[in-house]
């Protein structure tokens, strides 16, 4: 345990030496976390309470859901442990000190095992707890359920950690650690994207709608998922389900299964570690050659991307494009983006307009209007990952920009324009395709295209500006950049902006649309009001374009490196 003391002191010092303003940030973050936690609890409680009202099937549904939650957690935990253990066992800076000191490899394994569990599982545990507590509350479970929960969760976290660390050690034995990281990131993302798309296409919401199935037999068949008595999530379910329902079961047996497997996992892991870790750690420090940098095709592609930009802006765009496409953890995120877009557009194909009570064309245009806001949110979700980190990605090399004769204003606008163009392309594809699937009127299509065009400027400016106001130049992985306070501020600001635009446009668009659809007449005073509303929309967009860039510029100039 003494090997974990630097980590403990690091965390303690971080909290005891907060800079001015950090306290407020922590409070806001804690409140947001708490709100999300309460939201999760509320939703789980509501869903489970609803299930319990369905006679006969209710408990079955609830336990089925528990099984799905546990298998999801288990899969996420295995993957998360593989990724985390790559950092804790192979890439962490303290390893040089640890491995050059007279500490047995077994001791290093145990310390790193605890560190890996803490790093990989805390989020799953925090988000899982409100769900498990909601189960307890809805089923009015006794204290035995909560005791069983704690006793089952500990080995339930240890088993995937042992598996994950084992996979990592074998992977790094085959590839150098940095290459293994690339392979893992890519495989992980592809896995996630495939599962996500599959999940959407299967439409799990049908499970709570028995009417969607012709017969009860088909419904029950759909309810039966992939169950294996050899998986730890099944054992955890066998511990929790009887305790929830106060029914008889082999609780003790399955608890012992969990604990003995976790214990065996640690022992076997330490044995494997003693044999392969040192050699694989040594391999992990090997470099690799730059294959991509020598490809002429890649060079031409990068030059083509940067062609529309002038002077210094072009060289910044060229540099950023190269850095992006040479970093697997960056470009592989494009798969997520494609998945997000496919699922979004696919959802429009599923809308049951034919079953609606309202006239279909009216509903379609109403939804197309709401679609404006949704496309804004999807664009924001993409921007928080790709645009918000634009400044932070300069990382520790930011001194090069700061010491060069390049004004921060030019630098920031270079980031803006290079982010805006791809984002505009994406948001316009989204709005045009989704509106085309909705078969909306040309007027609504026009409104959508123009509004999204304008909003994308604001969304990009908010991303670049707030990214510059809250930069994070020290990071291990680019995906960490938007997860801090700045990322949350950006999401909230973008939602406020998109919400304002949609609300301000709602009334004039409704008036014009209604007049067109029902051959109504708009008096001159009505046009004045409509014009004022559109002017306000324009003003909000101009404000969203200029203000964040101004704030970002000021904060970045004041920042000391």
């Amino acid at each position, binding site marked *: 345990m003494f090997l974990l003391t630097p980590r403990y002191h690091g965390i303690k010092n971080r909290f005891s030496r907060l800079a001015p303003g950090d306290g407020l940030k922590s409070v806001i973050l804690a409140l947001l976390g708490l709100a999300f936690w309460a939201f999760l609890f509320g939703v789980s409680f509501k869903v489970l309470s609803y299930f319990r009202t369905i006679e006969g099937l209710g408990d079955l549904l609830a336990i089925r859901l528990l099984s799905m939650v546990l298998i999801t957690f288990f899969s996420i935990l295995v993957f998360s442990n593989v990724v985390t253990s790559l950092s804790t066992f192979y890439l962490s800076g303290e390893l040089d000190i640890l491995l050059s000191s007279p500490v047995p490899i077994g001791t290093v394994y145990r310390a790193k095992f605890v560190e890996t569990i803490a790093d990989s599982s805390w989020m799953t545990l925090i988000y899982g707890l409100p769900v498990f507590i909601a189960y307890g509350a809805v089923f009015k479970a006794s204290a035995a359920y909560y005791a069983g929960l704690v006793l089952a969760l500990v080995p339930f976290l240890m088993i995937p950690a042992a598996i994950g660390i084992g996979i990592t050690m074998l992977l790094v034995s085959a590839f150098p650690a940095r290459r293994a990281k690339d392979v893992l990131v890519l495989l992980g993302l592809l896995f996630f994207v495939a599962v996500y798309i599959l999940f959407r296409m299967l439409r799990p919401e049908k499970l709570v709608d028995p009417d969607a199935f012709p017969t009860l037999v088909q419904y029950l068949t759909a309810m039966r998922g992939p169950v294996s008595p050899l998986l730890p999530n099944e054992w955890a379910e066998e511990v929790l389900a009887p305790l929830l329902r106060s029914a008889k079961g082999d609780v003790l047996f399955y608890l012992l299964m969990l604990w003995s497997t976790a214990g065996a996992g640690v022992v076997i892991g330490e044995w494997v570690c003693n044999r392969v870790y040192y050699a694989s750690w040594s391999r992990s420090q090997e470099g690799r050659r730059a294959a991509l*940098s020598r490809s002429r095709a890649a060079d031409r592609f990068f030059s083509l991307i940067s062609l529309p930009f002038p002077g210094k802006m072009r060289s910044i765009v060229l540099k950023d494009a190269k850095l992006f496409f040479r970093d697997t953890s960056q470009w592989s995120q494009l798969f997520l983006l494609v998945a997000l877009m496919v699922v979004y557009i696919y959802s429009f194909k599923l809308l049951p307009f034919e079953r609606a009570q309202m006239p279909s064309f009216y509903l379609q245009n109403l939804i197309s209007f709401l679609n404006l806001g949704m496309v804004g949110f999807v664009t924001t979700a993409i921007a928080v990952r790709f645009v918000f980190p634009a400044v932070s990605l300069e990382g520790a*090399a930011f001194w090069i920009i700061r010491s060069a004769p390049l004004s921060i204003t030019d630098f920031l606008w270079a980031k803006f324009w290079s982010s805006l163009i791809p984002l505009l392309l994406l948001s316009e594809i989204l709005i045009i395709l989704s509106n085309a699937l909705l078969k909306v009127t040309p007027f609504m299509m026009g409104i959508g295209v123009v509004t999204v065009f304008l909003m994308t400027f604001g969304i990009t400016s908010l991303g670049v500006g707030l990214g510059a106001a809250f930069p994070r130049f020290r990071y291990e992985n680019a995906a960490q950049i938007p997860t801090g306070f700045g990322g949350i501020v950006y999401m909230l600001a973008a939602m406020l902006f998109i919400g304002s635009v949609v609300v301000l446009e709602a009334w004039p668009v409704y008036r014009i649309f209604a007049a067109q659809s029902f051959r109504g007449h708009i008096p001159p005073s009505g046009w004045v009001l409509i014009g004022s509303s559109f002017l306000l929309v324009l003003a909000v967009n101009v404000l969203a374009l200029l203000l964040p860039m101004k704030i970002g510029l000021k904060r970045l100039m004041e920042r*000391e490196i």
Partner: protein
Amino acid sequence: MIKLINLTKQYGTLTAVNGIDLEVPEGQVFGFLGPNGAGKTTTIKMIAGLLQPTGGSALVGGYDVQRQPLKAKFITGFIPDRPFLYEKLTATEFLYFVSTLYDMKDPKPRIAELLDLFGLNEWADELVENFSHGMKQRLVMASALLHRPKVLVVDEPMVGLDPRGARLVKDIFKDLAATGVTVFMSTHTLEIVEQMCTRVAIINRGGIIAQGSVEDLARMASMPDSHLEPVFLRLTGGDEQIQR
């Protein structure tokens, strides 16, 4: 060429640099010495335009670094103590990128010349992430010299360099000074200061405690004919700490 007027930097209640005044004429190699935490890197960062002074000003080639930053930066080359670079660029790509920041026309021959000078030819098309610390340091030096600066601001130039690299850097700095380039250099390697620097300033606890030639400093410490090491220790109070 470099003029610091009452230059001050405070971090909260801590005064890192306390109203220092310095003047370095053209074509000099100027040594900036001081114990750890004395304010050397803070001063250098203010000269390079990376830190805003709390008070006073830094002038490079007559340009105020805060008021005319672009003009000052055009004639300055900066070499930081830690060579953080864009890891996913090759050495050539990195130098091209820097050349565009300095509006250089046709930088190709100059890039080839510097890659050759710093022994990086073989590594020209290799990603920076595969470079050793010393190689990165040499690449940073090449980038700082790319636009033929009039002032070179250097923080710990010899860290990570092998003896050949260190010798190369010394020769380059001497040659640069001979052509009128001003080199402002902070270092802990006192032999280099003795060999290269025309003048030296010692900073301690944020203030300049001595400046002049190496001989001037020896006289100030009442240690004529001494090497710089005992002189430095005497002036900074380090010899008392050692005796204790």
